[in-house]
């Protein structure tokens, strides 16, 4: 009798990742810190430790000793479907990786599991399935005309045709959180930095596709990354500025991996760029912001790549700001809940996580909860509204910088 075929395969996993499944000591530290496990009312299926154990069991049922001797053991479709639901209930914030005593790179493990499940026909989750179609068709996930990325810029904004500095706006800032894109452009103009932008040639950075395990389909993420790189090169840019943590992370880590090549330019977050100018004394503040401000580290800027100090340095340099820290910051920061496709796929879960983070901010008595990512801003604003904390302002660092530099943003067009 022919042996049964394994129910799962190892597509999209690296050999090290398969080994990492065996390195979990089940200490439970990840469970203590997981924001979605917490916000879900401690749903055991969302616990990172549990997900690792389940996939390890799937592997052993399919390729372990017993499977080699007597053939693979069947894993029911329901079991895999349940696993899919649980593995997509993660914002890929990386908190579990930070606290993992075995140093398992969990973020990439979840992404590989997702990609495997997409290939198998189980993933992605809910509305996340639209990302590929939308990005393929519109070059952004918002179904917006790609010409609308920058054609709304007021006339005073000077964007060069070619320059050494390029501002990669990102879909959310250019098409939804426009105040942020406008603030960045006006701050650069006021500082006398000649910069260029891709405009309608800009394509989604691919973060949504990578995080939800859809990057390999039709090589969309790879093709888009290469097009962005080529377009940036064509603009003569040596430094690419990002005010979006998701785009920054995608460019810095995902683009070189997808294309298999080193980037021909330097990837810099706007707060890093500003910190450098502040050190040189090149920023002139015109207005004092007499408010208590706290800062939320975006996962993609902080834990994923280690940029913790520049946003703080910028906020602390702004006149009048009383900077206060929340209890969980930097490596141990609590996620805003929007990442990993959760905002699109499981909005209630995203809102639950955001509400908890807003409560962290309220505990500091801050007037402003700032961040350095438009996607964090959006979800934190939703979280604030959900718990009715209207007294708390949610604003991006770059907008506060613009305000302190005396820049008027009142002409920001509606989304």
């Amino acid at each position, binding site marked *: 009798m022919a042996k049964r075929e394994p129910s799962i395969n190892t597509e*999209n*996993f*690296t050999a090290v990742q398969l080994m990492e499944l065996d390195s979990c000591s089940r200490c439970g530290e990840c469970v203590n810190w997981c924001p979605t496990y917490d916000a879900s009312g401690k749903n055991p299926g969302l616990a990172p430790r549990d997900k690792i154990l389940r996939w390890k069991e799937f592997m052993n049922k399919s390729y372990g000793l017993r499977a080699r001797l007597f053939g693979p053991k069947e894993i029911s479709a329901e079991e895999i479907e349940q696993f899919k639901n649980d593995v997509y209930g993660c914002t890929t914030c990386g908190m579990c990786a930070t606290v993992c005593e075995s140093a398992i790179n969990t973020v990439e493990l979840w992404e590989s599991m997702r990609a495997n499940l997409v290939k198998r026909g189980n993933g992605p989750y809910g509305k996340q399935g639209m990302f590929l179609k939308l990005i393929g068709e519109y070059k952004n996930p918002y179904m917006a005309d790609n010409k609308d990325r920058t054609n709304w810029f007021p006339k005073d904004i000077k964007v060069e045709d070619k320059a050494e500095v390029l501002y990669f706006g990102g879909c959310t800032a250019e098409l939804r959180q426009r105040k942020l894109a406008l603030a960045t452009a006006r701050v650069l103009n006021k500082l006398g930095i000649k910069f260029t932008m891709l405009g309608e040639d800009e394509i989604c950075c691919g973060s949504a596709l990578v995080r939800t395990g859809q990057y390999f389909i039709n090589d969309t993420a790879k093709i888009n990354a290469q097009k962005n790189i080529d377009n940036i090169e064509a603009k003569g840019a040596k430094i690419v500025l990002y005010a979006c943590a998701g785009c920054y992370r995608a460019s810095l880590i995902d683009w070189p991996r997808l294309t298999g090549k080193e980037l021909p330019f330097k990837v810099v977050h706007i707060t890093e760029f500003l910190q450098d100018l502040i050190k040189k004394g090149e920023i002139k503040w015109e207005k004092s912001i007499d408010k208590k401000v706290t800062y939320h580290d975006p996962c993609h800027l902080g834990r994923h790549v280690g940029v913790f100090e520049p946003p703080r340095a910028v906020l602390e340099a702004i006149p009048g700001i009383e900077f206060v820290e929340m209890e969980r910051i930097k490596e141990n920061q609590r996620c805003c809940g929007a990442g990993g496709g959760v905002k699109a796929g499981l909005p209630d879960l995203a809102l639950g996580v955001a509400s908890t983070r807003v409560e962290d901010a309220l505990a500091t008595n801050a007037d402003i909860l700032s961040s350095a990512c438009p996607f964090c801003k959006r979800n934190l604003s939703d979280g604030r509204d959900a718990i009715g904390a209207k007294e708390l302002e949610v604003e991006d660092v770059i907008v506060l910088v613009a305000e302190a530099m005396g820049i008027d943003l009142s002409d920001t067009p509606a989304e």
Partner: protein
Amino acid sequence: MEYFAGVSEALRLTFVQIMIISILSVGIFVVGMYINLKKWGMGSTGYGQAPSKSILTFPKTLMYQMNEHAHVHNQSVLKTFVFDILFQRRILQRSPVRWFMHFTIFVGWMTLFAMSGAMFFVEMTHMIGEKLGYAESLPWFMNPEVFRELLSTPNDIFSYILLVGIIIAIYRRLFVAKTRESTIAYDSILLIGLTVITVTGFIADGIRNNTIWNGVINFDWTIPMTNIALSLHYGDPIFPFTYAPPAALFHVIISLLFCIAYIPFSKYIHIIAIPLALLANKGGE
């Protein structure tokens, strides 16, 4: 001379028995690790690449990842080895109690394992020396009986260190609600195995040394309690050494099966996988 752990003729375990079990254990371990390497090797050598399904895939990927630049924790292999693998600072950063528990188990376990290996090496060298006629020219400490005595004190020290770690682990599994509730058979087997090995080690050593176990282990219910009390008082064993060889044999067999043969098929695999994961991901604080 019959060899094993330098014990006397009266207490010997047969060399053949132990060698067969040792070879069997190592054989099972090798087969298990081969299966694991095959399983790990079913992954790809890099991000987004197709699975290569070769037994060499894992070592290749590991080497590649160790040499790759990391955006966070981009530290050297030596630093990872010392701070993260040996000192286990990632555990310390999270929970000093759990670190103490894990560290005592790790230090106790690894040192006892290393000392067993050293004892075996001395015995083998001496035995071969006797056959080939160079045993007399070996340094004084290369005599198995002398070497065993040299190891006696560190053996006791590290056994107690291991025991302390195990007691904390058992306490946590039984009395710390969060830990108890999350405990599954996968975790329990590891701890039960470790406990059985350690306890049998103490019993075997106690009987052999005829010290702390004198007259107690050889308890015979038919003997009047007064005689037992006298026996304990005067240190006169009732049935000296009766159970020493089988106790030692049981301890050694169960140690070999649990500590070597069972590693690839159980949670014990973390002993191998965690250092590899730390190296691959560059450890870090």
